[in-house]
């Protein structure tokens, strides 16, 4: 009898322990009765800026406690938390396919009544809207920071040789030849990290392919084989100006090489600058828009929503506190704090001090000549980056056709559910524009 009771006690104890383990934390109020607002944002490199902002906020607000998490690999952490149905209040993620998926899974709150939205530049709101698989009512994200991708160049090397910024594709090739003649490595790639293959790819896409090409393909009115042929050709042509064996080197290696002046240019985004500066803080970096087209007017700056805030669904009871936090983040002074720490472009209208490495792109930013990264529309499990790497390494004669054909078939396979959904939507709403989001 006694042992039976013991057994029952043990079982109950282990059950209780399990319950504690599984329940997780559901407390909404901190110990001193403040409303807790939890942000998880996906840029670990900005952790210092956000720590400063968090401290500043908590020092000035008595009723709200702000917690900002900046984990490594935040997207995996977020998804793991979502599986457990453990949601933070605000998520700071990029304007990419993950945002589209979260939105499509009804996980985000409509924040069209947030007043700060009117201060955001149009093109960034449009970027966010284009990420909707099927047109949605309402607004689900506030763009915070954008980045710009193109070509970073070593200003000192350029000035020394009197080289100027190219405006067309032919001028760019000519410049590369000239740099090579001067005995300097024109480009350096870190293609071992497959995602870096997308940097030139995206920058060329905005110049020579339609920005809504993915929606067009989903709706059945275009193929990638046609739209991406020039993009693929130009991407491969860059290899002749790069170091030998670009897939042997990682992103870190490439950043380090560029920082040490081993190459004159580096086709990557502004997000690489903090990394480069960590190797060589004195490097004089500027950037220019990748001229993918021979018609200079067609060339656009590749700029996308790098960090945008979305509120999770079901947080209506905390809305006021959440909006207070957003207001705080969008205060000019606090945006400048972020800008000084990271090389970014603010999505808010206004007069901000842009980092000097964006000098060559300023004209495009001010005139709103920008288009989003195409890879923001690619499903990550399709691994387009690895496909591009495969294509770049493929020396066979029909490499280009193989790659383009594969792109179309894999796209159809990985987006099967989505394509079915989109086509069904347009069948039910024949009056809506079947080309997806409209572009200015």
């Amino acid at each position, binding site marked *: 009898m006694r*042992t039976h009771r*013991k*057994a029952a006690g*043990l*079982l109950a104890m*282990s*059950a209780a322990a*399990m319950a504690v383990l599984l329940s997780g934390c559901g407390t909404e109020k901190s110990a001193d009765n403040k409303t807790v607002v939890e942000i998880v944002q996906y840029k670990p490199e900005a952790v210092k800026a956000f720590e400063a902002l968090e401290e500043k906020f908590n020092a000035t607000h008595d009723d709200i406690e702000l917690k900002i998490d900046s984990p490594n690999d935040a*997207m*995996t952490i977020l*998804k*793991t938390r*979502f*599986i457990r149905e453990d949601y933070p209040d605000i998520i700071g993620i990029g304007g990419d*396919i993950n945002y589209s*998926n*979260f939105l*499509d*899974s*009804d*996980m985000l709150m409509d924040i069209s009544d947030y007043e700060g939205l009117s201060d955001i530049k149009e093109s960034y709101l449009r970027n966010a809207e284009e990420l909707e698989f099927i047109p949605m009512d309402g607004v689900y994200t506030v763009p915070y920071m954008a980045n710009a991708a193109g070509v970073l160049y070593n200003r000192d090397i350029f000035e020394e040789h009197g080289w100027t910024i190219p405006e067309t594709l032919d001028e760019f090739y000519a410049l590369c030849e000239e740099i090579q003649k001067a005995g300097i490595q024109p480009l350096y790639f870190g*293609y*071992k*990290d*497959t995602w870096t293959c997308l940097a030139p790819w995206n920058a060329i896409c905005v110049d020579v392919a339609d920005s809504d090409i993915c929606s067009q393909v989903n709706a059945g009115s275009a193929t990638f084989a046609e739209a991406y042929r020039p993009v693929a050709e130009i991407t491969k042509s860059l290899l002749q100006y790069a170091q*030998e*064996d670009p*897939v*042997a*080197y990682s992103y870190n*290696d490439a950043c380090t090489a560029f920082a040490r002046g081993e190459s004159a240019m580096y086709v990557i985004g502004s997000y690489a600058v903090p990394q480069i500066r960590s190797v060589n803080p004195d490097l004089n970096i500027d950037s220019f828009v990748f001229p993918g087209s021979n018609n200079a007017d067609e060339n656009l700056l590749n700029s996308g929503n790098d960090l945008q805030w979305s509120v999770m669904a079901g947080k209506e009871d905390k809305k006021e506190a959440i909006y207070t936090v957003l207001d705080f983040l969008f205060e000019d002074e606090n945006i400048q704090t972020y800008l000084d720490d990271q090389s970014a472009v603010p999505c808010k209208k206004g007069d901000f001090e842009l980092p000097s490495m964006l000098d060559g792109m300023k004209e495009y930013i001010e005139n709103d000549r920008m288009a989003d990264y195409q890879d923001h529309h690619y*499903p*990550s*499990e*399709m*691994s387009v980056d*690895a*496909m591009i*790497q*495969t294509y770049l*390494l*493929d020396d066979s004669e029909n490499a280009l056709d193989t790659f383009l054909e594969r792109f179309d078939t894999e796209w159809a*396979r990985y987006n099967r*559910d989505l394509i079915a959904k989109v086509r069904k939507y347009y069948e039910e709403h024949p009056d809506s524009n079947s080309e997806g989001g409209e572009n200015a």
Partner: protein
Amino acid sequence: MKSKGAQERKRTFLLITIPVVVLFFCFNTLPLIRGFLYSFTNFKGYGSYEWVGLRNYTDLFGDARVGKSYLFTFKYALVGTILTNVISLILALGLNSKIRAKSALRGVYFIPNVLGGLVIGYIFSFIFTYVIPAVGQKLGIGALSSSILASAGTAWIGIVIVGCWQAIAMNTIIYISGLQTVPEDVYEAGSLDGVTGWKKFKYLTFPLIIPFFSTNMVLSMKNFLMVFDQIMALTKGGPSQSTESISYLIYQNGMSGGQFGFQSANAFVFFVMIVAISVFQMTVTNKKEEQL
């Protein structure tokens, strides 16, 4: 009186077992069953999802990328298992003989197992990318002058080298403990019959350590099939997607990508395969076991 004592003992054993069984069920069996259920959905890992029946499984067999990852993983596991067992058996024979600084050497050979897979991976990645090509260029050896991780044809060799380097440590220890169970009098009897060298190993040592051999085969096959750390650190599945292992693909597309349902199906198929392979290995080697 006696039977009561026996019952008491049984109850104690039961008390020890039940919490473990409960824990095992909650953290191992339950997730497995849930994963199996998800494999019939188009679940992305979050949000709403629909049941899609056997579609994930039929897709699995038509998916070139999954097929390639199975081919790569099995090629890697086979080569890795053979190399590891051959080298560690030789090492164990050496370290079990009467040589100087035996214990110190055993300690040194065990270090790779203590270090984390990622740490080793990053160190080797540096060696493959910078050190070996530099040496190769100096000596004018064409094959070594560029990183073996950069070519789709040779990258897997790099992963095999790192995987074996690390796996050999544990296997050697197991073989050493196996060799120590072989009684000296067997060798004495053998030497009277004039058995030496290779014959001594083939007819005396090896049959007596077969239980350890089978443990090592199963363990290293399983570990090599689940290869993940080394790929994460060395190649990230590249170049040209030539080194995507099954585990890597499941993690990459199931967790970071939105294929939780599909990769659950993949994981389940993989699980069944590993169980089948292990059972097969056990039955084959068990038949060859010698008892003294």
